[in-house]
């Protein structure tokens, strides 16, 4: 039980000559809500993309659920149990909400070409189970009424929720959210908070990047702060809030001053 779900040690990532991340080490425990904050350009999204396999790390170690990954591809990590949402919402725009979530089931289902052509009993069962599970998840995030609506015709808040439902459909161990509250008003943010707490209560570990410091502090069990591609602080929200390095980073004060 003491083994963390996700463990990064000494992770580095360069783009050309530019170092976006260096020597980042952190771990996320099972069942916690873990927040990642930092000023603009601190490397949050880069780190997030490393964790979800979109970027390949240049240095360091990446362990997830007791396994080590060298250059994991996104679909491989989704299979392993990491699901994500995107900062600038990336739904399958011309497919319905239901289909979007059913695509999330892809990784937990098996039917291949022959299954599709023969539509045998196991395929039919699988298909029915996928549809049901997708409906259930849409109901869970509160947009089941819109199941036949194209993703691009949903409202902004509904699209955010659909992304979460789609991610949950992959039966993740770790749900990684990239600025889930971006563009939301206070009521929407509050209901998002309730939803995330509920997701955690079902045993899913949650990690999120967020600009809304209030949301992070009110929601997360532990928070890490990135600045200039390095982790400058980590701990429970109150601790982090009082960390002088964090204050300096956010206020733009030079460390020496």
């Amino acid at each position, binding site marked *: 039980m003491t083994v963390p779900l996700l463990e990064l040690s000494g992770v580095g990532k360069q783009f050309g000559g530019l170092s976006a991340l260096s020597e980042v080490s952190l771990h996320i425990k099972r069942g916690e809500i873990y927040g990642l904050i930092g000023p603009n350009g601190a490397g949050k999204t880069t780190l997030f993309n490393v964790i*979800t396999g979109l970027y390949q790390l240049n240095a360091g170690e990446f362990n997830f659920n007791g396994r080590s990954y060298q250059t994991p591809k996104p679909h491989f990590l*989704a299979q392993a149990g990491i699901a*994500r949402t995107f900062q600038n919402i990336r739904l*399958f725009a*011309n497919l*319905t909400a239901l289909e979007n979530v059913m695509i999330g089931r*892809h990784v937990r289902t098996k*039917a291949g070409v022959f299954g599709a052509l023969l*539509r045998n009993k196991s395929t039919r069962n699988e298909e029915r189970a996928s549809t049901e599970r997708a409906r259930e998840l849409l109901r869970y995030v509160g947009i089941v009424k819109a199941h036949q609506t194209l993703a691009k*015709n949903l409202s902004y808040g509904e699209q955010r929720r659909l992304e979460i439902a789609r991610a949950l459909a992959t039966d993740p161990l770790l749900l990684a959210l990239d600025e889930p509250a971006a563009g939301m008003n206070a009521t929407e943010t509050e209901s998002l908070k309730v939803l995330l707490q509920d997701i955690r209560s079902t045993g899913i570990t949650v990690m999120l990047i967020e600009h809304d410091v209030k949301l992070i502090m009110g929601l997360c069990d532990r928070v890490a702060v990135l600045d200039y591609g390095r982790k400058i602080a980590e701990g429970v929200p109150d601790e982090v809030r009082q960390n002088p390095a964090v204050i300096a980073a956010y206020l733009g004060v030079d460390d020496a001053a």
Partner: protein
Amino acid sequence: MKQLLSPGGGTQPTKFTLCLMFAAVLLLPFATDALLGRGWVRIMDFAMLYIMLALGLNIVVGYAGLLDLGYIAFFAVGAYCYALTGSPHLALAFPLLFPDGLHLSFWLVVPLAALLAGGFGVLLGAPTLRLRGDYLAIVTLGFGEIIRIFMNNLNAPINLTNGPQGISRIDPISMAGVSLNATQEIFGIVLPSVHLYFYLFLGFAALVVFVSQRLEKSRIGRAWMAIREDEIAASSMGINTRNLKLLAFAMGAMFGGVSGTLFAGFQGFVSPESFSLMESIMVLCMVVLGGMGNIYGVILGGLLLALLPEVLRHSVVPLQQALFGKTLIDPESLRMLLFGTALIVVMLYRPAGIWPSRVRRRELETDEAAEIV
């Protein structure tokens, strides 16, 4: 309004209308023969082949969103596959090995050609599928040209393809010992060769439609569409985008290959000029013009673009005669001119195709619903 917008999609056709349609299609060659002449039945046969090709390409372009400009190459692979194995030609290339050529049964060659074309699809796809869309387009185009150039030139030092002259005397297709190249009488009904081929092609086209439909509404089909919509999001959802794109390529190529064998058997003759880039473009136009991703739209596109040039061929000369009293303009170029204009006009007025996929249609409906509310 809703029914007008969604024929076949929103409302399921009843069993009765289906039977009626089926009967109409069965009578089609006889009606065409009686009204327009036998030449038009032959044109219908070609239209069926084009529909098969368009449906095959629709898997690649319409479902998986991969722009393929060299699709006709797979058609060529299938056609040459049967041309080589079902004609006396191999006697020229390997006189010792096959003194009379190799005369394999058509029904044996079909699966072989499907596998071979599918193999070519994977071979082409494997190194190129990580390219962005337009690069993929140009690579597939290049591949199509490479295949054509090889067909044109592989008559020396070993005469494999007989070069620009092409391969002739290909065995006709026969079913249950009955050759389709001769008029047959079945249950007292006289069936000319073109009618027989029509039914054969109809059967294959129906099979292709069935496969397309099953794939579209399956886990695989949804994964393809996810890749089409957003590849990064798709891979983050656990879809192995590379393998699924390869699968789309291979499936599309197989359809192309099978159509190619039918083409070779029907014509009894193949030559490289049937597989020019213009043919690839033509098939792509069928898919896009008809309505990418929608099986019915693609069928309509295939039918229209296969028939339109023929209709124009038969109407531009009489039309000019009627208007000017003589043939002023070269009918061939006038025909193509009108064809090109039709492509432009249709696209300008229906950018999503004549019969868009259900997705676009539903969009129209929701817009309408929104207006009512």
